[in-house]
């Protein structure tokens, strides 16, 4: 089965075309755009909430996007176990929609950070990171509000349920304060829902899916999904 990806387009999304191009051209998946005002995900097997500044990030990042008509469908899809990935602004939207716990606040430095970072796959996910637990990937980030915050109880729950999938680290996989680019609690770069079907992450895997760009480390997530869907 070749999974069908749906990339949601909000007013202000700006990584939607990157995601579409990577999925369709670099990875060869059936891919479609889904306008946020639609009332159907049009038989998508996987939903991508891309990066950008939905609704200008007014009020809070992702706060208005959660009210878009299509988000009702995305919520229903996720609750039934559908695979959803929120990247950057998409992660913020997932948190605002209560599909993921916690919130993303302004970077500790107050600066917009745009650079390559290293992330470590710290848990096993059959869906998103099959066979790469413990590995380190170089992936770019580009955000002003990627500082992941969660209260202590919530953090303990994330740990107990093995929901923390990616943590910022150095080149050798050491999770250190110096390798934390935004002040996130415990260097968190990406988390999953309790059921493990919803992933939110600040780094941009869709930007690194092409060898010609010098880095194709983002492919592992999408290939893992393909493998997972093929085998269920």
């Amino acid at each position, binding site marked *: 089965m070749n999974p069908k990806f749906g990339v949601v387009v909000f007013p202000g999304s700006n990584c939607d075309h990157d995601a579409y191009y990577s999925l369709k051209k670099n990875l060869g998946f059936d891919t479609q755009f889904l306008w946020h005002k639609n009332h159907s995900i049009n038989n998508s097997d996987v939903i991508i909430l891309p990066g950008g500044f939905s609704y200008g990030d007014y009020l809070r990042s992702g706060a208005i996007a959660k009210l878009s008509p299509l988000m009702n469908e995305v919520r229903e899809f996720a609750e039934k176990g559908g695979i959803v990935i929120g990247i950057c602004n998409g992660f913020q939207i997932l948190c605002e929609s209560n599909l993921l716990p916690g*919130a993303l*606040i302004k970077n*500790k430095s*107050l600066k917009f950070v745009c650079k390559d970072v290293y992330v470590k796959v710290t848990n096993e996910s059959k869906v998103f990171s099959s066979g790469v637990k413990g590995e380190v990937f170089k992936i770019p980030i580009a955000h002003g509000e990627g500082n992941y915050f969660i209260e202590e109880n919530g953090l303990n729950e994330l740990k107990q349920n093995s929901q923390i999938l990616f943590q910022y680290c150095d080149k050798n996989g050491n999770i250190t304060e110096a390798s934390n680019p935004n002040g996130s609690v415990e260097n968190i770069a990406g988390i999953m829902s309790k059921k493990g079907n919803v992933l939110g992450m600040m780094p941009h895997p869709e930007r690194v899916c092409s060898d010609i760009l010098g880095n194709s480390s983002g492919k592992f997530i999408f290939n893992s999904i393909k493998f997972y869907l093929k085998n269920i």
Partner: protein
Amino acid sequence: MFKVKAIIKRRKSILDPQGKAAEQGAKLLGLNGVNSVRVDKMIDFMINSNDSDEAGKIADEFCVKLLSNPIMEDYEFTLEKVNES
């Protein structure tokens, strides 16, 4: 008609980098006594209702569901009855 003033405050336990930056600015101005600066949001809006209980419920729902994020922010609001004209 009610005039509402909602104040959205980031929880004290959460670092407020904007407040910290403003505090540093105060030091640069030589205002050494300034401390504990927090940057909050104030949002004004009107509600078409003559019933203060109803207006309060609407304002509360707006604050809970959209204007604030209960994970990291607290809110408070005041209602002021104003004439339609």
